[in-house]
């Protein structure tokens, strides 16, 4: 069964087209991540799935049923917001139970589900507090708890971790992955953090300017991007794109090489000067400006004694290079 099926969703605000012809399926139990630059329509798409916004055209089906005219509360979804959106005047427990009370669930069921969620999220000590008396991470947990107790068919997360600091974000990331394993629920997760996307997703949907650029598993997108945008968006530091720096390069094509696939060699095909060195301990990142005046990043494993201003030569394995045409689309090399 499919948890979610979007068919040709379009959305305009006045004359501005924000979403263009989006079709997509989410399988049962799948963890799908929407990524894309700011303003590309991720939140809008999520809000359409939740029923908070009506699509201009197209249909939304959740669990096999068309839900275009079904109000948010009856769609079998739960949403976690970037801003947490906890009810500030209610205690943690009341925050979690409000939805269930509205559904008219019996008291025993409510108690049982809340107890379970509280145990799962380690919120036992805070149950009577107001949201304002909690830390950011705890608030986020309450927001997730509020979603869990609804036992929805589909979870929607809108950048749930973006207000947390780096360390906490990593913890919560692991917790969310864990939660997905325990609940086995279908999840749609919006983020513009590609680490979150790569580590959490079964399937990544890359969006840009309101349309889907590519859909696939994280490794599929990483190893086999369909176009320059996807290639540049995933991976950190991001892929280098060179138009003329490589000796013997075909004019009019763009060559994409990931920073980790470049290596230093005496007579490499790329020549340039080091402009900056980042020593991260485990890795060393070199920023290089090529003789053809293009910038690139090199990621070397281990520690290197390089200094700014030093001339350098780089090379790469042809099997690691991607080729793009002037329309930024991938040119697939015939397999050798």
């Amino acid at each position, binding site marked *: 069964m499919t948890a979610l099926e979007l068919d040709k969703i379009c959305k305009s605000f006045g004359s501005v087209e924000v979403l263009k012809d989006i079709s997509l399926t989410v399988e049962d139990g799948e963890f799908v991540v929407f990524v894309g630059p700011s303003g590309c329509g991720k939140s809008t798409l999520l*809000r359409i799935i*939740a*029923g*908070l916004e009506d699509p201009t055209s197209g249909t939304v089906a959740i669990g096999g049923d068309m839900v275009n005219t079904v*109000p*948010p*509360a*009856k769609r079998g*979804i*739960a*949403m976690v*917001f*970037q*801003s*947490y*959106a*906890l*009810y*500030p*005047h209610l205690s943690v427990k009341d925050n979690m139970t*409000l*939805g269930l009370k*509205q*559904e008219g669930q019996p008291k025993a069921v409510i108690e049982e589900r809340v107890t379970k969620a509280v145990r799962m999220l380690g919120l036992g000590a805070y149950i009577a507090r*107001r*949201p*304002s008396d909690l830390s*950011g991470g705890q*608030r986020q947990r309450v927001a997730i708890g*509020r979603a869990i107790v609804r036992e929805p068919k589909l979870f929607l997360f809108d950048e749930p971790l973006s*207000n947390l600091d780096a360390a906490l974000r990593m913890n919560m990331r692991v917790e969310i992955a864990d939660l997905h394993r325990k609940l086995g629920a279908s999840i749609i997760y919006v983020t513009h953090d590609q680490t979150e996307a790569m580590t959490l997703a079964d399937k990544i949907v890359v969006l840009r300017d309101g349309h889907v650029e590519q859909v696939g598993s994280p490794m599929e997108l990483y190893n086999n991007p369909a176009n320059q945008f996807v290639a540049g968006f995933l991976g950190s530091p991001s892929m280098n794109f060179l138009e003329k720096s490589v000796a013997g390069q075909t004019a009019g094509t763009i060559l994409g090489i990931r920073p980790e696939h470049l290596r230093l060699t005496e007579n490499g095909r790329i020549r340039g000067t080091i402009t900056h060195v980042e020593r991260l301990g485990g890795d060393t990142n070199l920023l290089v400006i090529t003789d053809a005046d293009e910038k690139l990043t090199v990621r070397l494993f281990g520690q290197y004694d390089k200094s700014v201003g030093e001339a350098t030569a780089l090379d790469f394995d042809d099997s690691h290079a991607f080729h793009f045409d002037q329309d930024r689309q991938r040119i697939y090399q015939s397999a050798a």
Partner: protein
Amino acid sequence: MSKARQSTGATIAAHAVLIVYTIIALFPVFVIVINSFKTRQAIFREPLTLPDSDSFSLIGYQTVLKQGDFFLYFQNSMIVTVGSLFFILLFGAMAAFALAEYRFRGNMLMGLYLALGIMIPIRIGTVAILEMMVQTGLVNTLWALILVYTAQGLPLAVFILSAFMKQVSDDLKNAGRIDGLSEYKIFFRLVLPLVRPAMATVAVFNMIPIWNDLWFPLILAPSEQTKTLTLGSQVFIGQFVTDWNAVLSALSLAILPVMALYVVFSRQLIRGITSGAVK
């Protein structure tokens, strides 16, 4: 709330200014209250001294209380003020919510139309209002006053409240929608508690002018049954003789209910400010 870090000098200066202002503001009230407890001669001979055993007298209060209907006037004023505030806040908040929350044709125009009401004093329409009240048979009822004051208070209330409601996060309202709250519940249970400080501000702004108004009670409801306190107190002010004891006593008594209301609202105001926003 974080404590503002200021130098002691600045703190002292700020307090000095506030204390001076408080004294200036409270002085007339103080004079009225002390003189209401004095004999008529004492009021005129030494208006600024406290009542002593010689000059102490409750004659003013006795006159006021003997003027049988005084409690009725009190009650009328209270009903009119509280009733008007209730309707101003209820309808003002509802209209503000609609203007702030929903996108519909004419939203802007509606907002501007209401804002116009802030600039045009309602007294300009007194004659038309009186005609309307006569036709609907509302003259000499408290409803006449409540309706007029509600109309008078609404534009500013809508203006202020919609500005505050626009700041209530969309996510919060959407979370409510996903939890199955109806639009009414979202309004009453999520939005209203969050704009409580603004509601208190609007209430305080409207309360004093309504309580003190003489114009509309005199024109729309001058009957003995519907007199308000301000209008009722006028009996002591004659063209030739004024019963100062009674006037001062009536004024002193009139302060109490507003003060009580003010305390209620200002507590809301402060609680709202200190409760802090939740991200």
